């Protein structure tokens, strides 16, 4: 965990209501895909948490959906503006658990962390496959990037405007997988949990006061005791989740 100043490299629309923001700054605090950053926005008391989509030395990428005032303000930010960021937050996904054929399942604004995960799984010579769920064609993002990694990418849209009509779980049946990594709305996580035949890891969201474990603002119950989504999560193992 570190507090660093980042400079906006680019901030462009990637799909309807979805923006891609690239930032430059010290990324050395990131230790695993699935971790998140917490961005201070001028005029707002609380920081806003976003998953790291991808990172390298001195550069990281996030994708964010405009859902309220803070994200609307972010969408108007220009390159060269600087942001105060807490980085390296949360536990992230455990790559070691993946087995040879992990299945990555992302829904909407939950898709970004799976991209950094997929890249690192490939580096470890695993064969990940991915299912990406969107509401509609206009909201699709990151699809080409996943395809460019050379991994099998299945798309579902709730309205059938692209790929399989329905939810990510409708595309799970014929897959062969050693492990599941997933991130998305809680209803999706639960459906994936119920349908999945392997073990896996599920990334959760909660409203946060601090993002680094100080306020107990984000605690959930697990089979192994109380956990703070921001510090002990956001990624929980399938075995410990209580719905």
């Amino acid at each position: 965990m570190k507090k660093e100043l980042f400079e906006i490299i680019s901030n462009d629309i990637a799909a309807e209501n979805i923006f891609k923001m690239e930032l430059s700054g010290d990324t050395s605090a990131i230790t695993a895909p699935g971790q998140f950053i917490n961005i201070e926005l001028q005029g707002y008391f609380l920081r806003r948490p976003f998953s790291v989509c991808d990172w390298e030395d001195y550069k990281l990428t996030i994708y964010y959906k405009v859902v309220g005032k803070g994200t609307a303000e972010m969408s108007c930010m220009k390159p060269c503006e600087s942001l105060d960021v807490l980085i390296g937050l949360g536990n992230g996904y455990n790559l070691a658990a993946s087995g040879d054929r992990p299945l990555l399942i992302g829904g909407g604004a939950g898709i970004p962390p799976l991209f950094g995960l997929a890249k690192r799984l490939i580096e470890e010579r695993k064969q990940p496959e991915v299912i990406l769920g969107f509401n509609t064609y206009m909201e699709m993002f990151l699809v080409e990037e996943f395809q460019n990694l050379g991994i099998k990418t299945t798309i579902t849209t709730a309205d059938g405007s692209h790929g399989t009509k329905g939810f990510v779980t409708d595309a799970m049946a014929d897959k062969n997988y050693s492990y599941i990594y997933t991130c998305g709305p809680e209803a999706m996580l639960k459906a994936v949990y119920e349908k999945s035949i392997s073990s896996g890891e599920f990334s959760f969201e909660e409203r946060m006061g601090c993002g680094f474990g100080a306020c107990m603002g984000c605690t959930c119950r697990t089979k192994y005791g109380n956990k703070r989504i921001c510090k002990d999560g956001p990624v929980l193992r399938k075995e410990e989740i209580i719905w």
Partner: protein
Amino acid sequence: MVDTSVELNGIKFQNPVIPASGTFGYGYEFAHWYDINCLGAICIKGTTKEPRFGNDCPRIAEGPSGILNAVGLENPGIHKVLDEELPKLRHIYHQPIIANISGFSKDEYVYCCAKADESPLVDIIEVNISCPNVHNGGMSFGTSPESAGEITKAVKTIVHNKPVYIKLSPNAMDIAAIAKSCEEAGADGISLINTFLAMRIDIKKKKPILANVTGGLSGPAVFPIALRMVWQVYEAVRIPIIGIGGISTADDVIEMMLAGATAVQVGAANLKNPYACKKIIEDLPSAMERYGIKSLKSIIGGGH
């Protein structure tokens, strides 16, 4: 060289800056960010007799210049706090520790305070009769002079070794009367304020954001009100005051001390910036010089 030290009930603090209960965990977590030995003291998360999960999530919402929390006193219970959490803190930290005690009955307050009094790891006991986020407890003891005095008296009867501070709620008609009642019942000091009962509604869902419906508002938004209350309590009592509410800069510390605080607690500011207390402490000497203050002790209540 300016002198930032202050003294509460014979205990020397190297400076008046204390992270507030509930915003600093059990302290040792912050050692990741900086050397916490720079702090004046640490006030730990509110502790009850039994372990508590607290309220369901969402527990956090935002207001203009502030945060609403409805954590609901999540804590592992007084035994685990004293036996496991405080030793972890003491291992790396050598300044005073303030134990923040909560309860749902007079007996529970008495039980926890007695345990804290016995512990060699606790220097000051702060009795929280002002938590707005639990039902049938907490704040209900802190909103009338009679019940506040009653809890104070009960606790003071069994605590023999340590100063007892009573932490007051701003959600009361006459906070000066409550402070006075605590002083008469034997309190060694007053901490104020806890959070303001508040709420937010999610307009899209048309439902309250917090699962608990209401929460406590704190942060810069409440600073002027906290300051006014410290001012009023200073006029009403002679025991020391720890001023709390919306403090986020060295100037705020000085202002709060001019109103009558001997020390201050910094809450919400730690959540936005983990370095908040360290920064305030580092900024204090130059702020003092700017205002021609040689010793912080000398300005306590200086605004009156």
